[in-house]
């Protein structure tokens, strides 16, 4: 059971077909992500965990957490990470390009041909509708994560505390919350006898 927690990958051993598939999957995800990188998390999970079984649940959420602690757009971080673990350096380049190309292309098309794009009332209505769908999809991920989370007194306090800070203290950079959460994790580990830790880790997986 411990095995499950380890991020394993086949970097460098991926077939050409898999690498093209990586490009394609991230291209599709990049083409449909409106409202920033968070919106694509559910789609990524569908493809990577549920459809292709390249990643396990735990690995996916680990990568998501790491993508939040590192600088840059979450979408790019996830694409590079998944691309590398599934297809080596070439895989990471392809996945990153895949997720980026739609964003670049659509803006160039708009800048060249449709400068009045955002003022069109139909465009506005359509995208307001899309946002409704995006909200539902991110909420799905929230519920999924909440179900998987090992709820202890500490994790409840950390989660509720972070929410409180996000809602009531404006202008706080997420990085401080994330680092704070990590430090709490370290502190909990530090106060635990080693054997107990292994038992919890086993139970978790």
């Amino acid at each position, binding site marked *: 059971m411990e095995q499950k*927690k380890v*991020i394993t990958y086949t970097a460098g051993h991926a077939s050409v077909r898999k690498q093209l598939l990586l490009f394609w999957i991230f291209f599709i995800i*990049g*083409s449909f*992500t*409106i*409202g*920033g990188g*968070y919106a694509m998390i*559910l*789609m990524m999970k569908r493809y990577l965990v549920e459809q292709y079984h390249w990643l396990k649940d*735990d690995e996916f*959420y680990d990568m*998501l957490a*790491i993508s939040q602690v590192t*600088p*840059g*757009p*979450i*979408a*790019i971080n996830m694409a*590079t*990470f998944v691309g*590398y673990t599934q297809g080596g350096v070439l895989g990471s380049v392809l996945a*990153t390009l895949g997720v*980026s190309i739609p*964003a*670049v292309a659509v*803006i*160039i098309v*708009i*800048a060249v041909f449709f400068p009045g794009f*955002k003022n069109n009332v139909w465009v*506005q*209505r359509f995208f307001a509708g*899309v*946002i*409704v*769908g*995006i*909200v539902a*999809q991110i*909420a*799905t991920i*929230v*519920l999924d*994560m909440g179900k998987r*989370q090992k709820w202890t007194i500490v*994790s409840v306090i*950390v989660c*509720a505390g*972070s929410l409180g800070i*996000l*809602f009531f203290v404006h202008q706080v950079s*997420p990085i401080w919350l*994330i680092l704070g*959460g*990590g430090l709490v*994790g370290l502190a*909990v580990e530090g106060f635990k006898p080693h054997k107990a830790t292994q038992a919890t880790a086993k139970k978790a997986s």
Partner: protein
Amino acid sequence: MTSFLALFGVFFKIGMFTFGGGQAMIPLLQKDLVANLAWISMKEFLDFVAVSEITPGPVAINMATFVGYKLRGLAGALVTSLGVILPSFIIILVIATVAHTFRTNRWVSAFLDGLQPVVLALLTYTVYSIARGGIPAWWGYIAALGILLLILKYGKKFNLFLVLLAAGGLGLLIFR
């Protein structure tokens, strides 16, 4: 005329030092592009942000493409987009090469476990802020709840892209 090197440099720097995703870049971009460098006006900046938020792809890349294109055309757009992507790419590549040891180290594992509830809180807040900023009427919230229930009930059978397209179609009908 703005040099390619300057374009690349500004976006590389922003990509390098912005934590918390592309949305967190917007205030930094404004400070650099509008206030410090005066490459674009405040009105242009706000227009770019508005379009970036309703077009596919990470907002940061949309913004970079916009500014690059405005200042130096197609080549400029590629230079700025590459600039904003590269820091993430390089940093993650370095991390990914050692990632297989992540969960074998007790402390790293504890650190990651500590992050998860915060990530959960951030996502919850994101749902709230996107809904508040982007859903124009109360029946939009009802529709979102309906879609959520459908995904939960029939989840694996749904094509998520079609869900978004259908939601867009619904938007054409119900939002005024």
